């Protein structure tokens, strides 16, 4: 699954990152996987949220077949 990255993560890692995902997983699982691939950005990832299908997720279990799009959302700073 190709995960979208934004802001500092997109600039440092790239606009997307490819992850193999199991049938069910949590937002935390995804963040941990990216951290293990890019330990330099652990700090940013610890402050980031995960959006599935353009909605913020929290601790719920996510089923892969319900997913069209996943994105990592670093702390927002619009306005």
């Amino acid at each position, binding site marked *: 699954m190709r995960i*979208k990255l*934004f*802001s*500092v993560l*997109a*600039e440092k890692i790239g606009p997307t990152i490819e992850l193999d995902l199991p049938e069910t997983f949590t937002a935390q699982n995804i963040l941990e996987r990216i951290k293990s691939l890019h330990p330099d950005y652990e*700090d*940013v990832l610890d*402050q980031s949220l995960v*959006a599935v299908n*353009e*909605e*913020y997720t929290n601790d719920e279990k996510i089923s892969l077949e319900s997913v069209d799009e996943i*994105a990592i*959302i*670093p*702390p*927002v*700073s*619009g*306005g």
Partner: protein
Amino acid sequence: MSLVKIVDKPIDVDTLTKSLIHNEFGGVDIFLGNIRQYTDDIETEKIEYTTYKSMAEKEMQKLADIVLAKGMDVVMVHRVGELQLGDVAVFIGVSAPHRAEAFENCQMLIDQLKHTVPIWKKEYDKDKIRWGGLEE
């Protein structure tokens, strides 16, 4: 005529303002956020805004819907791309029957936008680049 949008061109403040003046409402409150040169001792040269556009517009619409449901009119426009000093980054406007509601809801919209809408700033300051929102 509610409007919720992310744009990559200058925000047309005048047209948006006029769109909020309706005979049925007596008060309009508008917030403009513009690029500030100094934040304490830090001097900013420009800001680059990026967004997860489709999700950002959805999140902005969710906020606007709260106010629209109360019978007011709402405009929320955020600009992305490279902005210079003095450029308007965000326009939030609420038109309401009574002024207290216009103020209250306009302030709520900008406060919430800063919490939930996926837009990010990369601040080119004189001393270094800063990523908005990150705890260092």
